[in-house]
């Protein structure tokens, strides 16, 4: 790391207070440089967990923007605040008992508030993952669970959509339900897996595995080095 004197400094505002930080940091590392030690609002630091939802505005702009602190470069003149928690309600369900064949209304039943969607698209605009949030809410309303699951697949459950929604929809929980239904009921199942599980039940590989467990390092090396690599999947 170069000495900080060599670095160009920028100014950011953390909950209104001004700090000077070096250029080239993320919002998260800029706050740390300024002296904040995270307990909340910091998780994986890699864009996968949704802990670091950040609301910000740029100097001279009236618009509120939203993004992840760990995946966004800190810029001169940013006014920042982070969201530590989203108090969203979630519908409970028993995955084994969702009967989607006889009930095409599963989504609406669990999340009736989706009927209040006014198609304002604020959820989509708020999403740091660029997911078409409103489109999957609409797909859920139509009972198109497959589409809702696919559209929402990249959701990191940060909750920014739900915080902004004028209809109080809890999009990310709704999407989770859609994906589980697709994984469980809509996608066709693997017959190869079924066969292997059956073979294992019958103890097909037990003897060979035992043999490997008992092999000396020399014997293992020999078998290992003689492995043939599968060329194509």
């Amino acid at each position, binding site marked *: 790391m170069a000495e900080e004197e060599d670095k160009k400094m920028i100014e950011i505002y953390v909950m209104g207070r001004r700090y000077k930080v070096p250029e*080239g*940091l*993320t919002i998260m*590392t800029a706050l740390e*440089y300024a*002296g*904040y*030690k*995270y307990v*909340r609002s910091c*998780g*994986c*630091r*890699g*864009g*996968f*967990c949704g802990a670091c939802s950040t609301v910000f505005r740029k100097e001279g702009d009236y618009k509120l923007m939203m993004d992840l602190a760990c*995946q*966004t470069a800190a810029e001169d003149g940013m006014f920042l605040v982070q969201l530590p928690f989203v108090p969203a309600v*979630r519908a*409970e*369900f028993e*995955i*084994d008992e969702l009967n989607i064949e006889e009930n095409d209304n599963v989504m609406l039943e669990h999340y009736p508030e989706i009927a209040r969607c006014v198609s304002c698209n604020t959820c989509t605009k708020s999403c740091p*993952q660029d997911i078409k949030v409103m489109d999957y809410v609409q797909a859920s309303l139509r009972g198109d669970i497959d589409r809702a*699951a696919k559209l929402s*697949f*990249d959701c990191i459950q940060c909750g920014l959509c739900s915080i902004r929604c004028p209809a109080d929809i809890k999009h990310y929980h709704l999407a*989770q339900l859609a*994906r*589980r239904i*697709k*994984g*469980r009921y809509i*996608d*066709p*199942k*693997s*017959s*190869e*897996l079924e066969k*292997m*599980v059956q073979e*294992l039940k019958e103890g097909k*590989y037990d003897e*060979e*595995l*035992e043999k*490997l*467990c008992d092999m000396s390092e020399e014997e*293992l*090396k020999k*078998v*290992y*080095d003689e*492995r043939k*690599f*599968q060329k*194509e*999947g």
Partner: protein
Amino acid sequence: MSDGYPEYMRKSIEKVEATREKRASIDFERMKPEESQETLDNFHPDYRKEGKHELKVGPSKGELAPIELAELLESPSIIDPSEIDLSQVDYDVEILIVGGGGAGTVAALWAIKEGIDPKDILIATKLRHGDSNSMMAQGGIQAADKEVDSPVTHYLDAIGGGHYTNQPDLLKALTRDAPEIIKWHEKLGIMYDRDENGEFVELPGGGTSRYRLHSAGDYTGMELMRVLMDESRNKGVPVLEFAPAVELLTDEKGNVGGALLMNLETNEYYVVRAKSTIMATGGFGRLHVQSYPTSNHYGATADGLIMGYRVGIPLRDMDSVQYHPTGAAFPDQVIGLLVTEKVRSLGGQPVNADGELFVNPLEPRDVEAAAIIRECYGKEKGITTPTGMRGVWLDSPLIDFKEGEGTVAKRLPAMVRQYERFNIDMTKDPILVFPTLHYQNGGLVINADSSTPVDGLFAAGEVSGGVHGKNRLMGNSLLDFNVFGRRAGITAAKHARRSQKPSKLTLDHLSKYNKELKDAGIERKNPSPMLLPEYRGKRVLERHLDVQVTL
């Protein structure tokens, strides 16, 4: 074209582009055993003796550990036993699970299947439920379920990759349970990538001789973790967030009987009494061993190793650390973040500054990492970034070149998004990579049923050792936390059913450990567990007033 690269880097990219077509058909020969050993000896950080410290106290006295970990192990606890009143039990449960990542959540679900009432379980976790390395795993999960494959081949790949140091009974459990785990995932509704007939789309990983890697885009860990958490919520498992365990509690016989938690926001402590305690705290990437950047989540600070070691659980294979071959090396904001191995599984190649392919893209992780370090620091054929970081190119556009346009965007959406945020289009331009501290290969010693040598304590996931020996293969960690999380949940449930509540809770093991430290003449000043890493600016810390403000 993306404009995220400075001009001089773009010149090097042109060389990569110039050789792309020719490289596309090269099947670079895998290293012979002698060459890979030599590359490891000379370039892998693990093989630098000065990075290790011989432990002076505890159950693994005499063994080597990274200095950064040894310093924490050979330190006193952050708590003073004389300040704690253990007679007031705040949570009285059958099973306490320390850690709310993959292993802990799986353990809870299987303990319930084994007959434990969800209300009698407590998951205590340092950050939020799900904040873990499990959430970040991108590439996939191994399970041998194809005609051409079997758990036997899976076993062989893993033990060779692990340099024959894996604990055989654990590896057998890992590979044999794998298909059943995927079956369980199907029932939970995990959205794996499948073809039109429902068969899984599987890829090879570094060191695997078969196409065995199941994935869900490059969000595999996230998809698993989302569903596991969702199911845990459906079942009503109580979770205490921002409440890490700071020490285990023992009974008069030295058996584990719960843990002491700390509320990270109020600093209040809570006493948990439990018949069974499962350690599932994950790994130690945030210790930044040998000053490497890390791909790990914020809470990966080795807490479970420290707590487990103090009650007497030996550690194994702590001398080996996994550096993932491809961490991001540019731009500065993403240094150390993971670039999934799946980029290479799909056909991407590591290429030097002159556009030359210098290693088979799918060597086991330690060999691949050592080869990249060799290219940068042995052969001086890396690319140096404006801030002095060295790296090699990972030719991601080659994937589209081989597999057709749109493949990268479709199969690696998380990676594409990460780079897009910083004006780099990895579907058109290669990305710069260098090894990053990724995984704790070793850990607490366990048996195949996830029990530890101390009664009442169980362990699963990255905190435990033996499954992967001294080098883990891609796709075996998601599998690990499922297989051993499940076994831990079942074993802990059985143990709870046949056990009485611990009569008296103590911290006697800490006094014993402190005495051992004193006798060994060790006086360290960094009490542990660490809980959270320190990233605040130097200037701020120098001016930091240690004052308690009371209202």
